[in-house]
């Protein structure tokens, strides 16, 4: 049984699922801002991704340097099976808790 995920961790993992392979900090930030309308810093995204990696939920690899980043390399993240399971559990829990009250949640 994996540890339960925090809310921000869920958002970051969901962004990884949406973005598919090759996601990195800036794209995750952009996805969260566009989808969840939440302004977060790139460095917060990396902190969370790093923690998720230490927990074994995601894995990272370092890319090639590109000129538009001033020759800095990217760090890409992919979802691992354990991460997928944790995300599924979180989603199931949320769906379970909200079943039947979706309408009321909107008008609450």
């Amino acid at each position: 049984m994996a540890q339960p995920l925090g809310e921000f961790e869920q958002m970051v993992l969901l962004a990884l699922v949406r973005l598919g392979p090759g996601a990195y900090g800036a794209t995750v930030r952009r996805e969260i801002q566009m989808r969840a309308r939440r302004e977060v810093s790139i460095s917060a995204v990396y902190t969370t991704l790093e923690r998720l990696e230490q927990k074994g939920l995601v894995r990272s690899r370092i890319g090639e340097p590109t000129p538009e980043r001033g020759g800095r390399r990217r760090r890409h993240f992919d979802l691992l099976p354990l991460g997928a399971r944790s995300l599924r559990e979180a989603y199931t829990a949320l769906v379970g808790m909200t079943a039947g009250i979706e309408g009321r949640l909107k008008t609450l």
Partner: protein
Amino acid sequence: MRGRLALVVIRLATPRAAREWVVGDTVEEFQRIREALGDRAARAWLRRETWRVLAGAPRHRLAVFRAARPLRPARNRGDGPVRDFIQDVRYTLRLFGRAPAFTTIAAATLALGIGANTAIFAAVNAVLFRSLPFADAHRLMLVHMTVPDRDQPGTFREGVWSYPKYRTFETTQHVFEEIAFFAGRDLDLSGSGEPQRVRGEVVTERYPAVLGITPVSGRAFSHDEVHEAGTPAAAMISHGLWIRRFGGDPGVVGRQIQVNATPYTVVGVLPPGFRGLIGNADVWVPLAAFEPSQLDEAQSHSYTIVARRRPEVSEQAAMAAVEVLGRQVDAAHARRDVGMPGWAARANSMYASRIDADIRRAALVLLGAVGFVLLIACVNLTNLLAARAMARRREVAVRVAIGAGRGRIVRQFFVEGLLLAALGAIGGLLVAAVLLGGAAMLLPDSDVFFRSAVAPGRPRIAGAAGLTRIGASMIGFDRVTVLFTAAVALLTAMLVSLLPAAQASMLRPVDVLKSGGKAVAAGGRWIDTRGVLVTVQIALALVLLTGAGLMIRSTSRLLDTGIGVDPSGLLTVRVDLPRAAYDSARGQAFHAQLLERIRALPGVEAAALGLCPPVSGGCNDTLMWFPPQAGPRHDGSDPVVGIHWITPDYLRTLGVRVLRGRNFTEHDRAEQPRVLLVNETAARRIWPGEDPVGKRVSVGQGGFHVGAEIIGVVSDVRYRAIETAPIPDVYVPLAQSYQSRMRLFVRTRLDPASLAPAVAREVRGLDPALPLSEVKTMDERVADAMWRTRVGAWMLGGFAGLALLLTAIGVFGVMAQAVTQRTAEIGIRIALGAGSRDVLALVLVRVAALTAAGIGSGTAAALGLTRFMRTLLYGVEPGDPMTFVSVAALLGLIALAAGYFPARRATRVDAMEALRAE
């Protein structure tokens, strides 16, 4: 916040391991937003991102730290200084975390103090200490002619060279391995692109070689280009101009540019950052092409020599040799039309002449003042820390009781000070960056700055003036400045932790534990160490206030000094007609048309032309002599007068009054008898007790050596500087003596600055190739003329205000603490029948005692220290009693007001409650 700074902040706030991708992503995201939403949106995003990163940084680091060590047991404690230190740091950080308000206030106070120190130091470092950006700069010397000073007989001032004298010097000297001269000029650039007025230098061929620089492309001037009239005209350009005007065109060498409507071929581009010794040059032209008439004008002095000493020749030897050479040069060139006997030469190292003495003095005074502000801030912090240490005495006592050494306790306090100072230093660097960004606004227009006024009797060195340029670009963070900040932070840490550490180490655990940790013990006098500190604080604040008061008085004295014209509603514009395109007939016609068009503009009351604007650092000088004398005598007996070319409306436009006789009219034309006006000072000095109107005189310029009749006396105008008394001046009609370089003066009922576009349109309408420059209201000119005093008053005033605020907080804090500690005593007094008046007096008398002691010692210190400001003041003495009395009164009032609040609280002490608590 600038983009680069934001990135640095993000970089520093990010754990090292993640820096590369976080910063890379930030850069990438910034570019993406800029492309999608524009520069503004991207900057706004970066700013918000930076704040988010800063706000989140501690949390993130902690999170990573925790995740990395999920289940490790607490590390066992041991000895060893490093481990102790780490423990102290952790402990202090926990304390900070528990009192975020205290930490923020303390760090912010220090950030302001340290930041202001860093900013001032960056400026001082740039102008006084940093080495000049030339190879072997210590061997560079500036060589001036020395000229007898007509204002102060018997003294000499530094002057400039003529070309023939330079040649004599160059060919006879043996102490320099490279030698060249330079002089600043205004140049009109046209041809490719908009006409543009730039600064340039007239130089000789070895000029780059002397300074040890080589063109990045192309070459320097050849011998013939400099010395042979008729050689095709060549020019070198600055790296910046090459980028801006020619888009970095690699084929720029060989291209033609128009300088003052004459074609020049670009032969070289000089390295980035080099702007000549005048500090803002963009174009370099050789003498023979630019000023061929100077090639045989031995008495036309205009150039400053810069030379590189031979390595084997000492500075003293070079100076001695130059002195001998100077007299030989003078003997070789007999004087003909200007000057007095006794010219010589003097060499100074470039370091010695890089900045004038007054600005050096001002910079050091400001550095001292800002140091005082930091000291005052330190006193406040010390008091805060000491109060906190008081509250922690029980904890400290327990630690001592169970075996902690005194050293360990003291170190704990030092670590606390160190961490606060470190926070303050980081904040201080940000504060300094902001302050330096704003510094450019305080500096005057460079054009005026070069000719800015100096104290009477100390004329600016014409050629070295550029070295005094404190361009905003010169001031910035370098290694020395950051080291300075670190050193200041360390010193601050020691200062603020000294008192709490000393208090704690003198603690006797038994006493504290017995008394239940209540803060009663340790003397409990009203005026303890902290009272003494407040006294010191008041004294320091008084010194600062006095300095600021003196500067403010100087400013108001300058404002009160009439310059002889009415500056409000007056616009000035420089209109130079290129001599190649305008002979005197065309020029006269242009001037007449221009005035006619300007007068027709709505809102214009009057318009006129004049050679030289008031308070601009000085105008043309020449000699005056009297018939039957045929020419000037050159023995110093003929009076020196300023000479001004004007149109008849000039007096009315500027607000100069005709005191006797008549003004010029339209009838005073070239074919009419020559006439001139003199000012009041001339009338008084040259014809004491007589009426000069109707007399005939000759003056040495503008064709007036043949003699002219004085037709009127007009009121004085201060042309040099506000603080310089008027000299004898004569005015001659422009219609009788054509000049190509004139200023247009426009008097208007409207805001004069709003008239500038219309004036520019009219000028362009007459000749689209004419560049306009020095478009300024007279009020701006007056402000520029007093910039140094004004900036000094602003900065010292700002520091003094800060000091006053910090001192008030200090007095308040110490008295509030004292009242709290004395609650029981006050309770007893009230129980015994003391009224609230008595209690109020009890506290306020203590405040008054501290304040009086502070003001007394501060006044003594200020009397000593303000003497260093003498040369910065105008119309007020360093020991000015008015200033001293008023600042002492102000400070006393503020201190009493700050003490009043704790005093009032003391009157509300509930006697019963206080005694029960005891």
